[in-house]
Each structure stands twice: as C-alpha cells, then as structure tokens.
C-alpha cells in the first residue's frame, strides 16, 4: 500500500481530465460524483497509507520515472513521504473533500458546474504533487500548477471584468515571488549539483557553515517564493482581491491549502534556513509585520470575505513567525488548525452569502442568529478558534507559537539576542486584534437588527461539512502532531505562569472589547471611532494601509506609461509594414474577383499571351 502513494494525486487528476474532456456534457449528479468522489477516495487512501506509515514511522520515497536527463541533471518524478508530507496530505484531501462536498450544493445552480469541478480537482492534484515531491523541480511543477488553478478559479465568473482583473493580479503578483524561487533553485543546483530535497539539505549542511553568504542568498530567494504564494508582505496585495472567486474556492485555495504552501516550503527546506540565521530572523519579522498589518486592515473591512482574507494573511503571518523563531512544528500545527477553522469560517460565510441573495456587506446582514442557527454555531466555533479562545484548536497552536517566540535566543547578528519578548508582544497584540475583528464579525452579522431576510436554509451537503469542520476546529488541537523526527527538537517551554496567563487572557479581553463596541455600542469607543481622525485612520486601514495605491503609483502606472511610450517604437513599424503590405496586396487582388466570367476569360487570354510571348522570346 505504501508504494501506491502515487494513486493519491492520480485520482483527482484523472477525474479532472475526464471532466475537461467531456466539456460539461455529463449529467450534474455524475459530475458531483467524480468531482467530490475522487477527492474522497484520495482521502481514504491517505488514511490507510497514514495508518500503515505510523506502524514503522520511517520516511521513504517512491521513484516513478526519470523526468528528464540532461548531463548530470536528472530529476525524477518521485514522491517522498514522511510525517510532514502526511500531515499536509491529510489536510489537503480531508478538508478538500469536505469543501468539494459543500461545493456540490453551493454551485448547484451554476451553469459551469462541470468546469468548476474540473478546476478544483486539478488544483487538488497539483497541490498533492507539491507536497509529495521529493525534488524541488517537481515541487515547482505543483507550485505553478496550483498557481494556474488559482488563477482559473479566481476568475471563474469571467463575465465580470473585475473578476478577470483580480485573477490577473493574483497571477502576476505571485509570479514575482515564483521568479525569485526559480532563481533560488538555479542557485542551489549550480552550487550543490542536486535538487532532491533530502540529499540537497545534507550537502548544504556539509558544504556551508552557518552564516555563509550563498545559503543566505538561496534562502532569501526561496523566501521570496514563499512570500508571494503565502501572501506575506510585501506581496500580499493579491489575496484580498482573490476573493472574487466562488467562496468554496476561497476556503480551499486561499485559506486551507495553497496559501500555506510557502510555509510548507520553508518547513521542508528548514535545513537551509538554519544555515542562514539572518534570513530566518527576516522570516519572523516579515511574519510579525504582516500579521499586525493584516489584522488592522481586517478590523475595518465591510465585505465579509475580505475580512476573512485579511485574517488569513494575518494567520499565515503567525506561521511565518513560528518558522522564523525555529518553532517548526508549531508553525505546521498552526497551519493545520488554521486550515480547519478558516475553512469552516469561509464555508459558513459562503452559507450566509448563499442564503442572503449573494450579499457580501456585513452591515446589510444582522440578526441571523435565530434564522440560520447552523451557520451561526459554525461561525461562533470558527471565530472562537480563530481568536484562540481556550480549549479550541487555535488556542493550542497560537499559544505554542507565542511561547516559542518569547523564549527565542536570537542567533541573528542583525537584531539583538533579546528580540524574543518583542516578537511575543507583537504576536500578542495581533492576538488581541484577531479576537476583536473576528467577534466584530460575529456581533454584526448574527446579532442586532436584521436587515436582509434569508430565503433558504443550507441543505445537508452544506451543513454536514460545517458540522464536521466544527468538530475538527475544536478537537484539532488536542493531539500533538508526530513531527518530532522531521524537525530539530525544540526544548520544553519554561515560562512563568504570568506569561501563560497573559496569553490566555488576551483573546478574552479582545472578545470583551468587541462586545463593548459592536454589541453594547459603548460610548467609550464610539467617541474615538466617530472622530474625524478616527474615520480617516479607519479608511486608511480599510484600504489595506494604502499599499495597493502605493504599488499602483509606484509600479503599475510607470509601467503602463512606459509601455504606451514604446508603442510607436521603430521595431514595431517593421511588423506593421508587413501587415500593411499584405493588406494592400489583398485589396488589389480582391478587385480582380468580380464574379464576371468574361472578365476572367479575358484576363486568362492576356495572361496566356504574355506567358507564350515570354517563353518565345526567351528561347
């Protein structure tokens, strides 16, 4: 069974190809069966393989075929399975299956039902290849595959030009990171002559010392790829716009799986990052900056999906923080719990949108607590886990990250050794903000006066996944992940009870503040929020710290201006000349096509005369 690991990505791939080839001619029931069933089967397969793997616990790789063979460069199409892979596989297929099941109802009345599942299955296959790959080139194949599927799914409703623009933005911005990553792969190959991850990490460890320049550059380039894919500063601007796609897509791609690929990449190549402590510190700083920035932005959004998008950016910031402080398994742990509760939140938000005539503005919702009870409870559980209230899954993972950050003994030369408590304090502020914005959402959408009446209730295919994800969001943090053998061991946490107490209390304070502002409407805060400077700050944060405007005026506008200036360039004139000449010739010749037979005959006769006289004269 262990050697049949290749079946896992093959199942959704085959289903996708089938759906593409039939081009929407299959009946909807069959499409749903293939689309959701293939991922469900893959999940079962992961379960059996995981069970068998746990008996031996020894990592292994499966070589399928040699992909290409050029000189001493021969990357194989081969899969590597260890505990980290298994965790990712379970998340992708498990959460993926629930989201596919949910989609069968959510997309039921869409005319492109089959195309939707074709893309989704292709995405799952690419994502599985990404995490199964045993060399960086195959990983890159999956990496680009998920990028393409993300592009296709963000622009799924392509008839609205805004959606097309959003998908192009997502593609182009992540491409910036991907280019950096490709350069990183080139550098690693020229230096180490291999791209197979495990031998490469060993070779890196033997070749370089800690603090050398080349591993730092390579790690920096890989970080560039991770930052682009995982929507971290400064390449995070695509994710809020990517919410243009269908909501289950946001749940699967832009919350649970694809955006965490960057975290996976860094965790997978952690040996390289350990050789570059400065870059590792940069990972932590990027994570911290992103999580704070995105949390402030999330606090001021009015679109339910954009709140969740910024919240996703913020939570991935936590994962980067965890990786940066060397708490590898805490980062992956948070990746998993985040996949559960953020998928839950997105699916619940999708249910709200679905039942409320596609309403996205939270201020037009309200009072849904009694009208959509299932959705309300799902949202409450999801928000509790997101805010890291005690005994939910998010609490355990975030707590681990914050404690690891507090205990960090800085090894970087750039920042002092005492950076740990500062990172902890920043993370704590982020946790406070997380609690405020997530319960702001709950109070505004589900309490207070109703503005829009729901016209339907979610059916079992939507309610079932919500219920299951609720359970996972709560108990997902109660068990430790078996990652000890993959990552360097981190010591037990020895922090005072005061620090732990603060970590537990912070989210509760945040919930209380949200209750004061958005439920009780206390004057204490409305005085601040209604003042003109408060309004201006709110607008500034709502626009995501005006970073989009900054990029537009700094990069996009000059680029467009230069492109327009180069439009009349001389090289183009050659090509335009070719076009003009052929158009003129065409018009000249089309004049001779009169449809008058006598004219044809006359021209034939004259042609004949000319030809005969030429040949006669030549001889």
């Amino acid at each position, binding site marked *: 069974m262990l050697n049949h690991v290749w079946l896992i990505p093959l199942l959704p791939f085959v289903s996708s190809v089938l759906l593409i080839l039939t081009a929407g001619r299959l009946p909807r029931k069959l499409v749903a069966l293939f689309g959701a069933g293939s991922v469900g089967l893959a999940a079962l397969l992961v379960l059996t393989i995981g069970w068998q793997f746990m008996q031996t616990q020894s990592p292994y790789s499966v070589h399928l075929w040699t992909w290409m063979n050029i000189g001493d460069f021969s990357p194989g199409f081969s899969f590597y399975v260890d505990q980290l892979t298994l965790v990712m596989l379970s998340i992708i297929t498990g959460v993926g299956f629930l989201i596919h099941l949910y989609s069968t109802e959510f997309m039921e009345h869409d005319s492109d039902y089959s195309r939707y599942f074709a893309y989704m299955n292709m995405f799952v296959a690419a994502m599985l290849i990404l995490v199964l790959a045993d060399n960086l080139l195959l990983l890159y194949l999956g990496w680009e595959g998920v990028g393409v599927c993300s592009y296709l799914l963000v622009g799924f409703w392509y008839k609205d030009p805004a959606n097309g623009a959003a998908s192009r933005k997502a593609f182009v911005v992540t491409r910036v990171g991907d280019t950096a990553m490709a350069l990183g792969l080139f550098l690693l190959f020229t230096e180490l002559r291999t791209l197979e991850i495990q031998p490469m990490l060993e070779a890196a460890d033997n070749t370089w010392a800690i603090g050398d320049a080349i591993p730092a550059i390579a790690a920096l380039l890989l970080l560039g790829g991770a930052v682009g894919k995982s929507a971290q500063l400064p390449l995070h601007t695509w994710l809020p716009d990517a919410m243009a796609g269908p909501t289950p897509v946001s749940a699967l791609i832009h919350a649970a799986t694809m955006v965490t690929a960057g975290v996976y990449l860094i965790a997978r190549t952690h040996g390289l990052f350990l050789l570059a402590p400065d870059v590792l510190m940069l990972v932590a700083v990027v994570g911290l900056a992103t999580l704070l920035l995105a949390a402030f932005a999330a606090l001021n959004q009015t679109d339910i999906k954009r709140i969740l998008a910024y919240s996703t950016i913020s939570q991935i910031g936590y994962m980067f923080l965890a990786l940066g402080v060397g708490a590898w398994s805490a980062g992956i742990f948070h990746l998993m719990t985040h996949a559960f509760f953020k998928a839950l939140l997105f699916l619940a938000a999708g249910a709200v949108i679905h039942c409320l005539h596609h309403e996205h503005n939270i201020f037009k919702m309200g009072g849904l607590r009694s009208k959509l009870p299932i959705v309300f409870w799902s949202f409450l559980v999801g928000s509790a886990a997101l805010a890291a209230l005690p005994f939910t899954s998010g609490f355990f993972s975030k707590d681990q990250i914050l404690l690891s950050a507090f205990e960090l003994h800085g090894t970087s030369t750039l920042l002092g050794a005492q950076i740990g408590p500062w990172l902890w304090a920043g993370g704590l502020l982020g946790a406070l903000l997380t609690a405020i914005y997530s319960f702001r959402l709950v109070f505004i959408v589900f309490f207070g006066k109703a503005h829009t009446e729901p016209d339907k209730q979610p059916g079992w295919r939507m309610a079932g996944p919500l219920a299951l994800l609720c359970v996972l969001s709560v108990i997902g943090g109660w068990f430790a992940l078996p990652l000890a053998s993959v990552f360097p061991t981190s010591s037990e946490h020895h922090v005072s009870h005061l620090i732990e107490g603060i970590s537990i209390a912070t989210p509760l304070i945040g919930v209380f503040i949200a209750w004061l502002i958005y439920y009780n409407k206390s004057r204490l805060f409305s005085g601040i929020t209604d003042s003109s400077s408060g309004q201006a700050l709110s607008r500034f944060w709502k626009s995501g710290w005006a970073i989009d405007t900054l990029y537009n005026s700094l990069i996009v506008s000059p680029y467009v201006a230069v492109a327009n200036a180069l439009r009349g360039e001389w090289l183009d004139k050659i090509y335009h000349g070719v076009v003009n000449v052929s158009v003129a010739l065409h018009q000249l010749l089309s*004049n001779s096509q009169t449809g008058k037979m006598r004219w044809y005959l006359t021209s034939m006769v004259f042609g004949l005369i000319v030809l005969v006289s030429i040949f006669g004269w030549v001889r």
Partner: protein
Amino acid sequence: MEGLAIPLNHVLIVATLLFITGLAGIMFRRNIIFILMSLEVMLNSAGLAFVAAGTAWQQADGQVIFMLILTVAAAEVSVGLGLVLQIQRRFRTLDMDQATRLNS
C-alpha cells in the same frame, strides 16, 4: 487527292482565325447562347486543325480525334443548354454579366 493540295499553313491560318472568332465571341458577347455558340466555333477550329494535320501526314489519328471532339461538343451542348434553362429560370435573364451573385 493531288489537285486539292491546299497547303497546311493556309488551313492552320483559317483554324486560328476561327479560334480567335470564337474567343472574341466569348469575350465580347453577353448572351449565354452566343457564348455557347462561340465555344462550338472554337471546338470546331481545333477539329479543323486536327483534320488538316491528319491529311498532311496521311494519318487517321486526326480524324479519330475529330470524332472525339464532336462527341465532347455534343455532351457539352446538352449540359450547357440545361444550364441555360436553369439560368433563365433563376435569374430571368440570359445576360452573363447580370447572372452573378458574387458581391464585388
């Protein structure tokens, strides 16, 4: 046969003149019936050339080919007259310049 010795060149000149007459008829006439008739003239000019050449070299081939041309002409006329009928019925005219549907 001796007394009737018309030089081959003369016959060929007549045949060429006939051919040009037919060709000019097709080029300048607009009525489809006249065009068909001019085609006949051209076919016959070719036939005349074959017969004259067959006589000049004392070969039967020229006359055989003339029989073939006669057959072709008969077939052509039967098809052509059918077309003429159809054209008259569709376009209500026999003018070749007006019987066109090509947009120019």
